[in-house]
């Protein structure tokens, strides 16, 4: 089993990272410098005003360490990209597949099917643990009906349409997953840029962290994260990463959000509301706790349904990226989305 490599999160404003031999040197405004060997680190995520030397950026690119800069509220700013590596033949196969309508349609349908299956699984888990509500049962029925229909779909637009209304229905049942009766955690649908309530703030942060992980997984196997199937190309958008995220969101982000709230690991007082924009963000200490919970969740082990390997949850993006690469190369007949058990 590949060890799950650690991700370094820098949240202290004014921190500066530089390269020292084979280590990442972290200079904080207070306290002594720290040195962390780069081996064992697979990514660096910087929040807010964090500086990084060009030498370290280059070193990270060379070592395939993904570097992402986010604002202090967790909105994506930039990532550091080294020279593209990996197999050019694989990337060509990816571009070709993206240009063939029925091929990209089938792939888009696979991503959506994975998403709907995993959303349904999240609802079923809740029904099993806490009993059903009308909204949960109804959405569960709708999702399982859509999943059946998706198997015969070969065009992107139909897949997108199904994804859209299934997602709407899923999020309308989402409040029933939250067992905590606190107005601070009321949820009435997704909103973002900026998130306007605590639940959306958590979801947005986790989606951003997941994009970071999926993108580096795709680029590690040599795929181009910008050329997607379900998501159309748009400059600066990691479309393929967004495609692959669809099936992983319920497993990684939605579930963690729900369990942080239900287990009272986050409280209403952990969130700050900006009086002008209405944006809701996590307070510094709470964000650290939430990041720690995210890292811990990635270390949970499970058996991958397709490869039958016992792995850490955090490695799922890497396995899915490899499976997609195999499919695009023609070694696998279809792309098997990750189906949560």
């Amino acid at each position, binding site marked *: 089993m590949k*060890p799950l490599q650690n*991700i370094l999160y820098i949240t202290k404003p004014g921190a500066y990272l530089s390269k020292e*031999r084979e*280590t990442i040197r972290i200079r904080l405004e207070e306290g002594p410098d720290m040195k962390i*060997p780069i*081996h064992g680190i697979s990514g660096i995520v910087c929040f807010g005003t964090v500086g990084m030397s060009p030498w370290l950026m280059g070193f990270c690119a060379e070592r395939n360490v993904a570097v992402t800069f986010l604002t202090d509220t967790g909105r994506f700013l930039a990532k550091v990209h080294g020279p593209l590596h990996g197999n050019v033949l694989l990337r060509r196969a990816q571009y070709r597949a993206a240009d063939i309508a029925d091929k990209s349609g089938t792939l888009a349908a696979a991503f959506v099917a994975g998403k709907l299956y995993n959303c349904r699984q999240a609802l079923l888990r809740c029904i099993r643990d806490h009993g059903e509500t009308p909204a949960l049962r109804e959405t569960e029925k709708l999702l399982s009906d859509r999943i059946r229909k998706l198997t015969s779909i070969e065009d992107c637009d139909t897949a997108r349409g199904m994804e859209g209304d299934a997602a709407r229905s899923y999020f309308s049942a989402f409040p029933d997953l939250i067992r905590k009766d606190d107005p601070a955690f009321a949820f009435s649908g997704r909103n973002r840029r900026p998130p306007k309530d605590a639940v959306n703030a958590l979801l947005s942060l986790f989606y951003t962290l997941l994009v970071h992980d999926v993108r580096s997984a795709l680029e590690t196997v040599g795929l181009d994260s910008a050329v997607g199937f379900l998501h159309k190309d748009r400059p600066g958008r990691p479309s393929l990463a967004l495609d692959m995220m669809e099936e992983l969101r319920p497993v990684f982000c939605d579930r963690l959000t729900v369990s942080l709230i239900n287990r009272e690991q986050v409280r209403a007082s952990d969130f700050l509301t900006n009086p002008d924009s209405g944006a809701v963000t996590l307070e510094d200490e709470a964000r650290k706790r939430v990041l*720690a919970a995210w890292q811990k969740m990635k270390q949970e082990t499970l058996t991958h349904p397709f*490869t039958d390997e016992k792995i850490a949850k955090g490695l799922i993006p890497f396995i899915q990226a*490899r499976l997609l690469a195999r499919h695009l190369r023609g070694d696998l007949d279809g792309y098997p989305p990750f189906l949560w058990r």
Partner: protein
Amino acid sequence: MAILPFFGGEPMMVLVSYDVKTADIAGRRRLRRIAKTLEDYGQRVQYSVFECSVDPTLWVKLKNQLLKEIEPLEDSLRFYYMGKNWKPKVEHVGAKPSLDMDGPLIF
């Protein structure tokens, strides 16, 4: 079906302690170089004690680098192989608590 590439196996913990004769300039140079090499792979937990969480491939590399630096007639290196399940075997008391490199790294 093995879909993950070979990454050199699971990481293990090796404790490295060194004692370098620093009576002359060459000795002090060896001391410095050994410390720097170890900093690249592990965490300094005491002045001449490092904890290195390395997979077997990386360990071979690190060990070779260390063996090249020392003067076998004057210096000594000790490697304690703590294996994969090392955490219950280590207890720390007092100043300079170490950083858990496998835990969440949030600064």
